[in-house]
């Protein structure tokens, strides 16, 4: 793992564009990309989440954004830190093509490949059926999550990097 502060933080939006609100993490990445974000790289996540271990290799500070389902109103914002991750449900594989995000994070922990500082924002999804439209509730959370990500990165001192 790279030494602290040697590389820019990375923000990764995860999801599937074609499954309605499941693409909301991608919307956050695009929104951040559109406005530019201080002192961080932004990318859309790999479809195969095991690739996250490669995508964040060498990064000390990573923020993930993904859709969540917890029977709360669409657009509800959740936040977890690296040490909260064990409260995420693993196993049971909701994703059939490989591993779920919680599984991949647990796998990364076992392999000692979790970033030193990892934050996950979840945006509660409404509909996740086929289609590219987002629900009003989930979409409304995008600017707020962008604002909170920028605040965290500023608050953290971000990284020195080339910012």
């Amino acid at each position, binding site marked *: 793992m790279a030494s602290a502060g040697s590389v820019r933080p990375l923000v990764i939006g995860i999801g599937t564009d074609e499954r309605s609100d499941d693409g909301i993490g991608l919307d956050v990445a695009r929104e951040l990309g559109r406005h530019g974000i201080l002192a961080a790289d932004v990318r859309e996540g790999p*479809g195969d989440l095991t*690739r996250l271990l490669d995508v964040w290799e060498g990064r000390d500070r990573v923020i993930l954004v993904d859709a969540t389902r917890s029977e709360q109103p669409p657009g509800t914002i959740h936040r977890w830190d690296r040490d909260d991750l064990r409260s995420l449900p693993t*196993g049971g594989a909701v994703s*059939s093509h*490989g591993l779920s995000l919680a599984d991949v994070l647990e796998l990364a922990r076992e*392999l*000692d490949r979790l970033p030193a500082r990892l934050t996950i924002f979840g945006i509660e999804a409404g509909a996740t059926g086929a289609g590219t439209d987002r629900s009003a509730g989930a979409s409304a959370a995008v600017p707020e999550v962008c604002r909170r990500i920028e605040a965290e990165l500023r608050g953290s001192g971000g990284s020195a990097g080339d910012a």
Partner: protein
Amino acid sequence: MTERTVRVEYLARVEGEGALTVRVRDGSVENVELRIWEPPRFFEAFLRGRAYGEAPDITARICGICPVAYQMSACHAIERALGLEVPRALRDLRRLLYCGEWIESHALHIYLLHAPDFLGYPDAIRLAKDHPEAVATGLALKKAGNALLTLLGGREIHPVNVRVGGFYRVPTREELSPLEPVLEDAFLAAERTARFAAGLAFPKVEEDYEFVALRAPDGYPMNEGEIVSSRGLRIPQERFEEEFEEVQVPYSHALQSRRRGGGPYLVGALARYALNRDRLPPRTQHLVAEVGLEPEVRNPHRSILVRSVEVAFACEEALRLLRSYGPPDRAWVEPPDGFAGGVGRAVTEAPRGILYHRYDLGADGRIREAKIVPPTSQNQSQIEADVRHVVVGAIDRPDPELADACERAIRNHDPCISCATHFLKLEVDRG
């Protein structure tokens, strides 16, 4: 009458959603039904009316694990309809892309889906706790396959750079050469994988499979060759539908295939290896000898070892193609003028076995009809037969153990249920 029902709500570590029902009456197996309840996806229907050039990108969406297979079968079938000959250099580049998909797909199955079965873990996470180096090797292999896919396919998932006639853009020598050390390391990882797999304890099973795969004049099959079987079948790809038929079963959304007038057959790694062992390149042959792999593997549990050998092959082949690469004159070739419409059929070797596409094109280049027969559809009947044998041999075991044995029998064949029409639910009905 004594009756027994065992239920497993879904089968884990398979690609897709489905269920299995086993009915036992008076101590004997009445029937085994692999039920694929993932909704039908209607790809063949919504290809109708589309321009032929759209087919590779539309069909790639059928599967996130093997999109290249769909692109390859689509392109070859359409090119056959158009009478379009694709030059060797572009065919080699396609083969290189396919190597990437084989490596990535097989590594996923070997380490994250299949290996936990042999070592007594419920999943790859628990496996990683005790065997981190094994899981790390799997992830490194996936990464190497992914690097090929990303470079040649334009992105890492659902590649967008494949087109009828070739590629939208071909890489430069300078772009490809950094992949040589990556693939050399991957070959070494594949060797370690085969040694790891060879050391696993395998349940003793021997199945009487009819293996079906492609066989080409030279090289281990991917995009080219005749359809051959271990029972003497040898036909050109165009005659696939004459020898194989799809039947509807009431309990599944996926059609099942069988030999016309015959029974189930098996496609995939076991079949390819049995029918093409002599076509493996030297370093992989050496590995086969080292791990003591028999000439024909009829124990489906040992498919993990055959897949490991195929990963080594795909790395060795990718290295050969990388080292001999010179950019083709053109990224793609155009079809001859005067196309009056016609039908094209093609079979290529997806990681899970032969994948058949047929397209009937109008003179305007639009698709009139499409037919797609994925490998998992073809293996369904054989998987049911394997499960039946497991149940017969383990009928006295308690339901959870029996259910676990059935799930393993299914995972042996790496079914991609989402391709066949997603989780498997297992239900054993003992009456």
